[in-house]
């Protein structure tokens, strides 16, 4: 069953196993258009497996995944690639192409997916870099950037094709509090300025406070709590309480 029109990302009864390890045990979630859904949970709870299963980097064993009204888990590679043009994904470590400069990391995507000439692409690339406040680093290589800068370049690369939905895999892990705030505010701005719907995987409370509209708490392969951040925080589930106590 397709989800209602106002749902940008819908996951229904998603299962994923690796050998005998059942990581996702029937995940169901809906992300409304123009909202940020934050998936929280401890290490090894299956957060990254969930986000990778949604974008089909991992093939789910069972369940349905809908993105912008298209069921993506049954698509052939070419059809899936068409859907992926409307998706942006920010990886945990940035995943910048290290043989290319920062500028080329962004330009490469435009070069491959648009018919724009080099001169037409340049202002688009620079605008994206200005948006993440890194235009002066355009000609550096990823190895010359700090962790926070890499994530911001990863973010600029993810939005270069103006996606309708975004996925963030631990966007603030390993960053200092100032960088956490900077990256989180950029994520929130994307929702506010461009009406982008997002799934954010994080265990960072500060990040969740800044970006979350809805929070889903993952434990043992299932969502054990969901709602606003305050509702989840007040959940009587012991695992959720432990998580918040340890995260403080």
């Amino acid at each position, binding site marked *: 069953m397709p989800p209602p029109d106002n749902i940008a990302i819908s996951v229904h009864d998603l299962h994923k196993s690796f050998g005998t390890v059942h990581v996702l045990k029937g995940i169901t979630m809906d992300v409304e258009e123009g909202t940020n859904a934050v998936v929280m949970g401890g290490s090894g709870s299956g957060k990254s497996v969930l986000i990778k299963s949604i974008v089909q*980097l991992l093939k789910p064993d069972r369940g349905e995944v809908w993105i912008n009204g298209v069921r993506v888990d049954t698509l052939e590679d070419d059809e899936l690639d068409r859907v992926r043009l409307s998706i942006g*994904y920010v990886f945990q470590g940035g995943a910048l192409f290290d043989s290319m400069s920062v500028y080329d990391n962004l330009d490469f995507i435009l070069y491959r997916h648009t018919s724009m000439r080099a001169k037409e692409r340049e202002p688009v690339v620079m605008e994206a870099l200005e948006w993440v406040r890194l235009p002066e680093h355009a000609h550096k290589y990823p190895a010359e950037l700090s962790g926070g800068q890499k994530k911001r370049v990863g973010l600029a690369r993810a939005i270069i094709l103006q996606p309708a939905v975004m996925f963030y895999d631990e966007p603030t892990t390993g960053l200092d509090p100032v960088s956490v705030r900077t990256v989180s505010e950029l994520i929130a701005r994307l929702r506010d300025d461009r009406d982008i719907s997002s799934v954010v995987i994080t265990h960072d409370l500060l990040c969740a406070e800044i970006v979350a509209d809805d929070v889903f708490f993952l434990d043992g392969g299932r969502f054990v709590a969901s709602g606003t951040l305050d509702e989840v925080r007040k959940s009587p589930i012991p695992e959720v309480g432990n998580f918040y106590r340890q995260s403080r």
Partner: protein
Amino acid sequence: MSAAPTSNTAALERLQRRRSAKRRENSVLLHGFEQAGELCLFAWNFLRRWYRRPFEARELLRQMDEVGSKSYVLTAVTGFAIGIVLAMQSRGTLVRFGAEAVLPSMLSLSVFKEIGPVITSLVLAGRVGAGIGAEIGSMRVTEQIDALEVAALKPFHYLVVTRVLACMIMFPVLTIWTDMIAMSGGYLESVIASNTDYRVFFDSAFQSLRFSDLIVDTMKTSVFGFIVGIVSCHKGYNVKGGTREVGQAAMQAVVTSSLLIFLADVLMVRLSLMLFGLY
């Protein structure tokens, strides 16, 4: 009375040891078959996709440059050493039988038909294979391949097809280059040892070679290039873990490619003999 239980326990332990050794052997064997199956599937994926869009011409040229321009000095030095050493070692025996005049043709036959193609491919398996295995492996562990995938950039085309094609194109080119340098090495040895005229040397060398020999023996390095490209890309593409596994992938790429080059050489020589009688 007490001896029986002890001997029973010892026998049971021996049986258990034998069983666990057998299980280990089986699992090693199974792992080997699994690896071979995965490699075949990977090669089949390449064969199914290499002629399909997108054509990554720019990346293919970059990879050809990577394989060619960064390896030609290494293969030249190898070829030069082979030419000189082969000439030096053969000269004594040939002189003893009064057959010194056949040295150039013996050298050209050895170099063009077997030593040149195989040694060049082995040297390239070491340099190029390890490079590809490590580069793609590190792209896998740093999620760069996932980033290509999620950006709809078809990483198999971009990374694998281009590298395998580059190897298939550049291995024969580098082999001809190495063969020529090896012949120059042999000529240099002849000049030093017996002041041979270059026209006499090269006339004699190329008289014994047929053009078809040259084509078949050089083109078989395209198959060696395919082997090195596919094996190295497969090892890198399927790395799981971290930097340690990337190193292992690079090492396995070289070892597996080298072994498969020998195997393919034997099969192709046998096949050529059956089909063309060229050898």
